[in-house]
């Protein structure tokens, strides 16, 4: 999982959780999860829908406030 690989690079700053949408239904409801995979960044500050390539994920994250 890309997010898991990312966490490895800086685990003191990054927490990457794969979440079973069915097992954690309330959490899925909270974020209105439809299509998966759906990456919720910083409790909803940003969303990345789909299994995106690494460079796309990087460009999405760079839009976040540092």
């Amino acid at each position, binding site marked *: *999982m890309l*997010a*898991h*690989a*990312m*966490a*490895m*690079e*800086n*685990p003191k*700053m*990054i*927490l*990457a*959780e*794969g*979440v*079973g*949408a*069915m*097992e*954690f239904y309330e*959490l*899925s409801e909270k*974020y209105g*999860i439809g299509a*998966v*995979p*759906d*990456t*919720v*960044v*910083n*409790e909803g500050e940003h969303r990345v829908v789909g299994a995106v390539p*690494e*460079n796309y*994920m*990087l460009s999405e*994250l*760079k839009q*976040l*406030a*540092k």
Partner: protein
Amino acid sequence: MERLLPDEIVTQVRQIFEKLVNPVQVDLFISEDRSDTCEPTRQLLEEVIPLSDKLSLVVHDLKAEPEMAQLYKVEGKAPAIVVNARDGQTVTDYGIRYLGVPSGHEFSTLINDLLMVSNRDSGLSPEMRTYLKGLTQPLHMEVFTTPT
């Protein structure tokens, strides 16, 4: 109890595990009130982890070990799987969690995570590594998935 993994999958996983390099410790947090998902997860890991001597499994009760749950940021979350590096007695948290039953597609994710952590290498591009190492704010990613 009937086994979850068919023989052919066990054979395949054993072959894949020949590529494991360094030890990996999987910590599983379970909870009695979520036994419908925790028990199959425990059973699956108890079938997978013994397939390599590089792998070890530690099972925690979420309620009985609140300090451990807090340490791994899995309070109130079961089943929660943590994939840690282990070097001798030292266990290193790489920030990798899987919340839920690792079945279907997520079974492959688990196997790949074990290989990645065992290699101690994310395999990411230099650009991504530079960005992640330079983070000044915490980054929390919740990747929602389903088994199919």
